[in-house]
Structure formats: structure tokens, C-alpha cells
């Protein structure tokens, strides 16, 4: 087990290195001077700026400088807000905003997606081929509908309905609990549906297996049966689905942050892309990739712990 974790950790490092290398090269192979679009600067100032951003060195030296900075936790300097460090933008001191806001949004959404998906799939799987069959049908149609509706549609639509028409929740902002409700639900909705679909078929399969029949014959009540015996093996495919779910939720959070004006790193990414602030976007791509890679690693390790069939 321990050696498995070590091996997986060893696999993470080349991936991370590839991410940094590819995105670094993409940025620095692009022709054009990042300061050229500003007001005509005096040559000595330009030279000073180039020196400050290490742009006067050969590419491989720039890359080594960049790696060195990254390892020491320094994400470099923003090009748009000159002289301001990206660390300061991403991890603002004291005030609310930046990285941790996005992480909170993502964490809540994953939790809601997991809980919602499991509850819906239990209802769906247990009512299949029974008198209450319609529940299964309703849930299936709901899943299909939700999966086909992109977050780009659901997010503004939810603002229109629940904030503008009904005034139940605020249309945006961050800080209080009621600010959280709409963004978290909208962000987790597609993944609730995906988890429901996957877990439903696996739960149906498990419910048909001999050990469940034995437990039924023993006289276990239905809730106890599902909770104690059926749910855990049925959740295995869901655990392996968590990796892509996290990547999707992080991607979706960019849209959510924009619609609900949440001051996270997604909104900074979009602003950086609009302002063509290469360094900021580069740093954020690396942060997002790091999040996804680390989470995938965690999921793999959890999976290995949970599944007794896997031995390392």
C-alpha cells in the first residue's frame, strides 16, 4: 500500500512538470513583446522591465528561473498590474477572495453533488420495476435534462428565476450562507445527474446479487439493507468518477464566479485572459492543474483503500 502511494506520487511529478513546461513554452514561444502595447516606454525603462521579468535571458534559463520561483512558492509578477505579485492577487491577505473562495465553492459543490447523487440514485434504483416506478422515470428524465443543459444556461436562468422574479436568494456576492445556495446547487447539478446515473446502474446490479438476497432472507429491513450492505460496493464506480467530476466542477466554477460575481480565481483567470495578462493566466493554469492532479491522486489512493479486490 505504502509503496503504491509512493509510486503514484512519483507519477504526479512528471505530469506536473509537463504541465509547467507545456504552458510555459506556449506563453514564451508567442511572438510579441508583452510591454509593446503599453505607452511607448523609454528604452532604458523597457530594458529594466525586461531584466526584472528575466526576459533578456535565453529561454531555458527563463524556464529554470520560473521553476525555481515556483518551487519557492513564488508565482511571478502580473503584467497588467505592473509590479504586483501574483501571489498577492491569488492569496490576498486578510480580505475575502482569491484561491480559498474558489476552493470553498468547489468543495461545497462536490459534497452536494455526492450527497445529492447518492440520495437520488437510491430512490431511482429501489423504485425501478415496482409500483412506484414513476419515481425512477422522473429521476431518469431529470438526469438527461440536466446533463444536456450547460451551466452557461442554468446559472443565468437560476438568477432570473430565484433572484429577479422570486427574490428568494441574492443575485450575487459572497460571504453569507444565502449567497452560497444558488452557485453551489447550480455548479453541482450536472454532477448530481452523472453520479445518479452511474450509481443507479451499479446499485441495481448489486441489489440483484446473491449476498443481498441472503440478507433479505435473513429479514433485514430495507433501509438497513441498503445502508449496511448495498451502498458501499455500489459506490465504487462513483469514487472513480470523482476525478473527472472535480475537473468539471473547477471548470464550471469559472462561469459560476462570473455570473454570481464571486471573487475567486476563476474571475481573475477570465480577466487575465481578456487583458492578455500571460503571467497571471499561466500561474492560474498551473494552480488549477495542481488542484486536479492532487485530487486525482487522492481519489486513486482512496479507491485502493476501499476496494478489497485491489492489492498492491
Amino acid at each position, binding site marked *: 500500500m505504502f509503496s503504491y502511494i509512493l509510486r503514484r506520487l512519483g507519477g504526479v511529478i512528471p*505530469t506536473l512538470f509537463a504541465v509547467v513546461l507545456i504552458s510555459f513554452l506556449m*506563453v514564451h514561444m*508567442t511572438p510579441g513583446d508583452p510591454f509593446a502595447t503599453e505607452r511607448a516606454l523609454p528604452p532604458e525603462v523597457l530594458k529594466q522591465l525586461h531584466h526584472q521579468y528575466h526576459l533578456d535571458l535565453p529561454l531555458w534559463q527563463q524556464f529554470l528561473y520560473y521553476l525555481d520561483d515556483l518551487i519557492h512558492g513564488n508565482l511571478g509578477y502580473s503584467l497588467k498590474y505592473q509590479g504586483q505579485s501574483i501571489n498577492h492577487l491569488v492569496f490576498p491577505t486578510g480580505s475575502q477572495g482569491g484561491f480559498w473562495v474558489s476552493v470553498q465553492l468547489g468543495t461545497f459543490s462536490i459534497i452536494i453533488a455526492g450527497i445529492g447523487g447518492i440520495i437520488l440514485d437510491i430512490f431511482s434504483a429501489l423504485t425501478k420495476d415496482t409500483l412506484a416506478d414513476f419515481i425512477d422515470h422522473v429521476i431518469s428524465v431529470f438526469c*438527461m435534462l440536466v*446533463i*444536456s*443543459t450547460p451551466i452557461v444556461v442554468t446559472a443565468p436562468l437560476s438568477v432570473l428565476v430565484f433572484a429577479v422574479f422570486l427574490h428568494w436568494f441574492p*443575485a450575487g456576492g459572497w460571504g453569507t450562507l444565502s449567497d452560497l445556495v444558488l452557485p453551489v446547487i447550480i455548479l453541482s447539478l450536472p454532477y448530481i445527474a452523472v453520479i445518479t446515473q452511474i450509481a443507479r446502474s451499479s446499485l441495481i446490479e448489486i441489489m440483484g446479487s446473491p449476498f443481498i438476497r441472503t440478507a433479505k432472507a435473513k429479514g433485514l429491513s430495507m433501509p438497513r439493507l441498503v445502508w449496511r450492505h448495498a451502498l458501499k460496493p455500489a459506490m465504487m464506480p462513483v469514487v472513480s468518477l470523482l476525478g473527472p467530476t472535480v*475537473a468539471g466542477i473547477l471548470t464550471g466554477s469559472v462561469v459560476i464566479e462570473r455570473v454570481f460575481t464571486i471573487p475567486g480565481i476563476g474571475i481573475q483567470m477570465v480577466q487575465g485572459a481578456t487583458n492578455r495578462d500571460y503571467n497571471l493566466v499561466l500561474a492560474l493554469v498551473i494552480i488549477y492543474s495542481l488542484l486536479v492532479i492532487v485530487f486525482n491522486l487522492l481519489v486513486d489512493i482512496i479507491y485502493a483503500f476501499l476496494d478489497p479486490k485491489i492489492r498492491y
Partner: protein
Amino acid sequence: MEKSFTLRQKKKNAYFLEKVATNSYEGAFKGRSLYYDAWLRFKKNRIAKFSLVVLGLIIVMMIVLPWFSPYTYAQQNLLEVYQSPSAKHWFGTDSLGRDIFTRVMIGGRITLEIGFVATLVSVVIGTLVGATAGFLGGNVDNILMRIVDVLYGLPFMFFAILLVTLFGRNFILIFIAIGAVVWLDMARVVRGQTMGLKNRQFIEAAHVCGVKERVIITRHIIRNLIGIIAVYITLTVPGSIMIAVFLSFLGLGIQPPMTDWGGLISDGAQVIAFNYWWLLLIPSSFLTVTLLCFNFVGNGLRDALDPREQH
């Protein structure tokens, strides 16, 4: 009534029997191909058939209707801003008095174009990589699939944003960015299918006959992959459309005044607080219906081509 019917039926049967007996009716012995069978099964799936019709209607609308519109997508009329839907402007007007009906149709063209072209890119790359890896196996397979695995673990949307940041908002670039995101699934599926196919007897027979490997891949393997590729095309188009819409919504897609559905939804979302519901709801409905139809058709095709695996 019933009697005459059975009488007619009897006559018909007798006719067929005679034809079959004299071996002059070709239809009686004509074999049914795999794809014809699949088509018959697909036709029984009502939702899928209905979705296919709706999709066809939407595509025809996008192509034909802009020609008959009295407005163009960029034509502004500052005297008629934020008009709600009426006989003059069927879908209302936006902040610059542009006709939303025309803009939704033109935007739909762009969105569907991006969806199809990006899918085409991903099909070509994915099929080639998948078929090569699956057919050759060994080290080539290991290396290619390892690359796919590494790419799979990356949040590709962010790389697409980085690409757009670097090279500006370029039409071709958006195709490339999306195609690069969606080919991975295709490569995996095609590889799996190829590995199943390559040990079948007809491939062995081809080897024995001395057919070149390249020809075996293109003529025998890829031909037999067409079914699964068709399924993935119908499922990849909505995926690509979603990514295109995502980028345009963030203002990183098509440049104004040209627009696509993502851009229109984004415009609508910005004025949401003022109750201009049509700016948001109309493009959103078109997008959602299109995506739903693609997904239903894709699922119907999958069930039709692989009847063993019913969902």
C-alpha cells in the same frame, strides 16, 4: 372488412411464395446488413426519431431563415432597443436594437459549425491514434495511451483559455482548442474496439492473403469501427458545442458583432436584472433543445448498434 383484408393478405402471400419458389423475387433472399438492422431498431426508438426530426428542422431553420429576414445580424437601430418579442421583431431586440431572431439564427450557424468542425478534427485524430495503438499494440500502444492518460488528467479547458489568451480570439484557434480537448475519448473507445476486432478471423484471413497492414487498418478495421464512431460523433458534437459556448460566454470566443449562442446568452445574462427575459431565454432554449436532441439521437444510435447493452 376483415375478410377482404385476409383475402388480400392471402393473395399477397401466394404471390410471394410463387416468386420465391421460382427464385425470381430478389427481396425474399436479400440479406440484411448490420447497419440496416440497426436502422430498423433506431426507428423503433420514438424519442430518438423525434429528436432527429427536431435537429433536422433546427439545422434547416439556421440555414434558410436568415435569407428571408429583413434585418442583418449586425444592423443596429438605436430607436428600437430592448423591444420585447412582437410581430416586427419575433424574438425582440437587444441593447443596440439588433434583431434577436436574425442573431439567433446566425449565431446558431456558427455554434453548429464549430460543433461539427471540432468533432471532425477530433474524429480524425482520435480514430488514427486509437486504431494505430489498438492495432499495433506493444510499445506503440503503451506510449500513445500513456500520453492520452497524462492529457486526460489535465484540466484542458484552462489550456484552451491560455491558448485564447496568447493568440487572441481566432476562429480557427477555437476549433483547434476544442478539437484538442475532445479527441481523447474517441481515441480510447476506438482503441478498445480495434483490440477486439484485430483477433477476429476475417482479419487473420486478410493477413494470410497478404494484405498490407496499412490497408487492413483503413479498409477492414476502420470500416468496422464506423458504427461506434457514428455514436461518438453524435455524442461529441454536443460536447464540442458546450465548450464553444463556454468560451464565448466568458467573452473568449467569437468576436462581436459576429456572435454565437454562447455570446447571445452572455449578452442576455448581463441585463438579467432588468427583466429582459427574452435575451436570455430564447438563445438558451435553442441551445438546450439542440444539445438534448443530439444526446437522445446519440443514445438511440448506441442502443441500436449494440442491442445487448440496453440502458
